[in-house]
């Protein structure tokens, strides 16, 4: 008969093995970033580099304007996350706690957004950004200029609200007891006060979860910045990584060195917000 302690040991061992398997691609990325191309392409695979080539990192960072790429990614990600937290949480609150005509129809239309793949809406969204009236040389009909193409606004605007974020927040706010709203109303609080002073302070887990999801999605986004930006000054880190790839060759060691540095901010963010992230996942029932 297996004791409780024995079960824990077996469970922990299995979990440890799974964790190591998850960690393996990251380790492979880091060790590849320290190898020579000759060693990477050698018919005999070696996990530990024969010569630790830390120089790959400085070589990779000297290739391309990485200060600009990181700066662009930080700006775009920060603005997108801040605005998306505000808009998604407010919309989620409205769908969860307010009664207004057409609420369910509207929420259903929001849910449709989750089901339509991003690729299908990419070109129409691009056209909307290009034809945005009064911006980028456009007239009131959205003609004559380039709208938001090649600008931070064009990179941020389509992502500051989204079906997933609204759904996530709505599910979280549904868990609150109705008595909370009623008590606040009796005390004379209006809807905004209820949201900002009662709901928002109690929503750290869901906001942290949404922030992590949004940061990861924006930081890692490749296709939208690719079609939206045209100059090197507007490149984000994901576009920057393409400089190690030519038509016939990939400089894997430099690519892995740059990738290690690019994923570092996300890893740090996850470690910092891990506690809230787990809470948010558990309370919204998302898996």
């Amino acid at each position: 008969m297996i004791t409780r302690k024995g079960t824990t040991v077996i469970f922990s061992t299995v979990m440890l093995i799974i964790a190591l398997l998850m960690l393996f691609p990251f380790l492979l990325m880091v060790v590849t970033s320290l190898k020579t191309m000759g060693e990477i392409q050698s018919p005999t695979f070696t996990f530990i580099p024969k010569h630790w080539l830390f120089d790959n990192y400085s070589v990779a960072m000297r290739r391309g304007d990485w200060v600009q790429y990181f700066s662009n990614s930080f700006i775009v990600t920060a603005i997108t996350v801040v605005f998306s937290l505000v808009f998604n949480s407010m919309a989620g609150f409205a769908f969860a706690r307010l009664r207004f005509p057409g609420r369910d129809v509207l929420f259903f239309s929001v849910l449709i957004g989750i089901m339509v793949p991003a690729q299908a809406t990419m070109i129409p969204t691009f056209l909307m950004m290009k034809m945005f009236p009064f911006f980028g040389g456009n007239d009131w009909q959205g003609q004559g200029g380039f709208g938001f193409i090649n600008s931070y606004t064009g990179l941020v605007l389509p992502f500051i609200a989204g079906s997933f974020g609204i759904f996530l927040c709505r599910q979280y706010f549904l868990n609150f007891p109705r008595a909370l709203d009623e008590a606040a109303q009796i005390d004379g609080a209006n809807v905004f006060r209820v949201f900002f002073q009662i709901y928002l302070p109690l929503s750290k887990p869901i906001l942290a979860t949404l922030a992590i999801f949004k940061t990861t999605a924006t930081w890692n986004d490749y296709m939208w910045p690719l079609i939206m930006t045209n100059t090197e000054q507007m490149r984000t880190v994901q576009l920057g990584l393409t400089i190690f790839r030519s038509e016939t060759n990939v400089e894997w060691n430099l690519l892995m060195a740059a990738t290690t540095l690019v994923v570092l901010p996300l890893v740090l963010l996850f470690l910092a917000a891990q506690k809230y992230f787990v809470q948010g996942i558990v309370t919204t029932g998302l898996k």
Partner: protein
Amino acid sequence: MRKRKALLTTLCVTVLASIALSACGNNNATEQLNPKSEGGRKTLTFWRAGTDAPEKAYWTRVIQEFEASHPGVKVNYSEVPFGNDMETKLNAAYASGTAPDVLSYTLASVAQRANLGQYEPLDAYADKWEGKGDMMESVLNTGMYKDKLYGIGFIPDPRVLLWRKDLFEAAGLDPEKPPANWEELAKDAELLTKKDGNTTVMAGLAIPTANAWTFWQSFVLQNGGKIIDADKNEPLFDSPESIEATNYIVDLVKKGITIPNDSTKANENLFPNGKAAIAYDSPAAYVNTQKDHPELAGKIGVSGPIERKTKATFAGMRLLFMSSQSKQKDLAFDFMQTVMSKEETWNRYKELGTPVVLNSLKEDYIKDKPDMNQAVFDAVSYGEGAAKVTYSSKMYEMISQHLEAAFYNTKTGEQAMKDAAAELRKELPNLITN
């Protein structure tokens, strides 16, 4: 009162959000795209497929010199990775009317984008261009589609025969004598193949097992076969010549002289990875192999492709195209002429190692590196790229899939070609766009 306060709060949030978003807009970057906002200065947009650093440095210099010799002109340069990335970006740009004035892109795009009216016919400009007569005929022809010139070839990518002299020597073969015919190639490849049990660890000949169409096309053409009759939209790759070439390749694969690899994945390319003794590959593969494996300096041989019924090889090509949406077509062609000038073609060879495309540079080019450049120049002269039909990518996908089935014993080489041709004939009504 409460309603008014809520309305005011909503208004404030909206205004603040608008201001913040407007402020975060990079107006300078948008202005760079907009000719109108530059006080009368002309702005030319130029996109190129590819993101590698050496070519970027090349274009930066060319653009700087072009701007210096054309006061008041600014060239906005942008680079996009090959393949689907470029396709998506171009589709978005053409749909929104923001396509570049000049584009450096592949031969495979000619038929489709010319057919859609996205590429400007260049005949009227080329007739007045002095340099046209100096261009190699084969290169000039690559830009022709339906009797019109749509692109000007400037970076050829021909397949040449590369071989490892050190491995030839170790196998008891003459390192200075590459195989001269198909029979010798098969014999040498078998001799050079190294296996660990049933697994090939050193390929005698690098044959791609996935997306193998470029390799296959070289052999079909050498055997006197054709791929397609573009005028009649009739597949010709189930001809006896094509079937014989296909059977030859399939037999070699079944003997295990190659290591499974995908030709579209650079990291799986056997020769530059030191995993093949012989390969049909581009001059760039030769350069990359020498760069990544300095110990192989002087140990790699280069020659023209093997002749059978005719001299032939696959030759990709990068071309300069002018967008039909361009509002400054004369300036766009001026830029193209600068890139195609004798001086710039030579600079391109020196800085990037790209083969020359002008007859007047032939002697200097061959004299510079006789061992390699004669073979490369010949390959450019008689090389043939992807078929110029609007459905070429679909056709080559079908060919590659049926070839793969033959490699893995699902069918014979002959059956693979017949099945691919039958499938294409069936699909053609849906694929042809006029």
